[in-house]
């Protein structure tokens, strides 16, 4: 059984089909990239996989559970327990320090543990900056805090929406290296991007266009 199965899902806004009868399977431990032009439905798909939205039609099985039928409250719980989220705009809580931002995720999941949060920051190379507020961190550093936050509760799936969209080349590479490391450790990764370089780092790329799967590319050169 795949970790994630999208079965004929559609998301319809009035006349517009943001997603149109999409079916995708994602295996445990797989690194998948989703590409496509702006407006092709990438974020919509990520919201559905990330339990922040429901499809208009179709089923979404996460770990065998159909999340398209769950209540908003249950979705919050599932999201908390199984999914790590990374966004293009980082979205750190601006009045909390780096380590506190990581601890917030622990807090809503189980119990905040400063030591563990510090280890997570060390992993993304930010031990020195743990007590800084987001406004005192560079974009790359902020995104690394987000990666640490996404990982802290050992999610089944890490979902990233344009994680490198606001980063320069150097920071993009740092984040990609972090993803490689995660992949080696067996974390399932789904990365939305329109940067071919980022997509090439993944094992498989799905290209969306107008809400449909336009093509699927297996990265022959994938190297761990």
């Amino acid at each position, binding site marked *: 059984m795949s970790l994630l199965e999208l079965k004929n899902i559609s998301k319809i806004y009035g006349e517009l089909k943001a997603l149109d009868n999409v079916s995708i399977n994602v295996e445990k431990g797989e690194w998948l990239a989703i590409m496509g032009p702006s407006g092709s439905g990438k974020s919509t798909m990520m919201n559905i996989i990330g339990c922040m939205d429901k499809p208009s039609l179709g089923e979404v099985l996460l770990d065998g559970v159909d999340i398209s039928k769950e209540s908003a409250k249950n979705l919050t719980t599932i999201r908390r327990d199984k999914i790590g989220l990374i*966004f293009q705009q980082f979205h750190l809580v601006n009045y909390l320090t780096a380590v506190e931002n990581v601890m917030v*995720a622990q807090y809503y999941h189980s119990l905040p543990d400063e030591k563990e949060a510090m280890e997570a920051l060390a992993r993304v190379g930010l031990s020195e900056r743990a007590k800084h507020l987001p406004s005192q961190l560079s974009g790359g550093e902020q995104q690394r805090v987000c990666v640490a936050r996404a990982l802290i509760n050992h999610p089944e799936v890490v979902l990233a929406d344009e994680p490198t969209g606001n980063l320069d080349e150097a920071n993009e590479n740092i984040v990609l290296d972090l993803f490689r490391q995660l992949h080696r450790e067996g974390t399932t990764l789904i990365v939305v991007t329109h940067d071919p370089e980022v997509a090439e780092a993944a094992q498989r790329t799905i290209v969306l266009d107008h809400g449909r799967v336009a093509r699927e590319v297996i990265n022959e050169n994938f190297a761990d």
Partner: protein
Amino acid sequence: MFFRMLRGILVRQKGKMLMIALTIALGASLATAMLNVMMDVGDKVNQELKTYGANITVYPKNASILNDIYDVEGGAQDAYLKESELGNIKTIFWAFNIVDFAPFIDTTVSLDDGGEVTLVGTWFNHHLDLPTGESLDAGVSSLRSWWDVTSGAWLDEQAMADADEAMLGSGVASRLGVKAGDVIHVKASSGEADLTVVGVYDAGGDEDDQIYAPLDTVQRLTDTDGLLSSIEVSAITTPDNELAVKAAQNPAALTIAQYETWYCTAYASSICYQIQEVITDSVASPVRQVADSEGEILEKTHLLMVLITILSLLGSALGISNLVTASVMERGAEIGLLKAIGAHDASVSGMVLTEIVITAIIGGVVGYFAGFGFAQIIGQTVFGSAIEMKAMVIPIVGVLVICVSLAGSIPAIRTLLRLRPAEVLHGR
């Protein structure tokens, strides 16, 4: 973590929180000022009105009928009250509301120039030790505080020499051509006396043509030892309502419950009733105009203050509502994120509410003290005296502030609950 988050918000976003606290402080200060003044104003107005004299008079049963029907004063009298029962007035249920009282006995005396004048015997500043163990200075020096002493000074019973002393109305004084320090001779039904004039007063009424002397002096001259012709009482009263009017006509017509309510409310009529209970064969009646206007003024003042308090709280509720909603909107991404990483609606709402309650408490405390300052300013400018700090105001303001802040945050909380992470987290 919750506390670290709270601290983060309160310390690192203090600008915004300060604005909210300030709004709350403003509302709280107005409420505090108004409530303090409102609770104290009753006593203040009463103190002011007390200067206009007694609001209850007590006559002997028979005499009062005569007085009412024929409006006679100081004439031949065969019914008296007992001086020994005077202290009982301070033992009634509403003893605390009795601020002052004075006994009277009067007679007509003839003067050396052949003229006749009313001599009134009363207390000036009589020291009284009550059966309850308390003591009290009662008498006309405060019941007639509007008297303008134009020569000499108020008669002081405590400092009285052996000689008989008296105070003369300005009319009598000018007729006799005497001033403070002079001695006049008076002749009454059962004796005569030389009275040393210690003071001349201008009362602006009938009393200017009378002589006031200590009670026992007049009793001696009229051979009425231990007897009184009337008592004037100044009491703090609650404005009459239907029940009080009904009771005043006939207390026996009340049901037991009504009777209890009436008896245990400081209506002029229930105080009168209780005075009659302790003074044998007496009739106590409110001096209507004063008692009523006192209540009316108070009621109107209270209403005004309640309205101002409500309006100020409403204003601050609106202000809080705006500020909190704006701050929740501004924090949409942050709150969306908290939801995205697993915060349930309840914990996010709880968080925001806790912030507001803490801000409200800070604002409330600041507002309370500021309001207390306002109350003092009002007290000084309007009444020329300090407003007493009423402990009752603290819980009332506390509850009001919390309610108003919570009510003010309802729109923000609703916005917050509607907020879906998917809509705020992806930059479009």
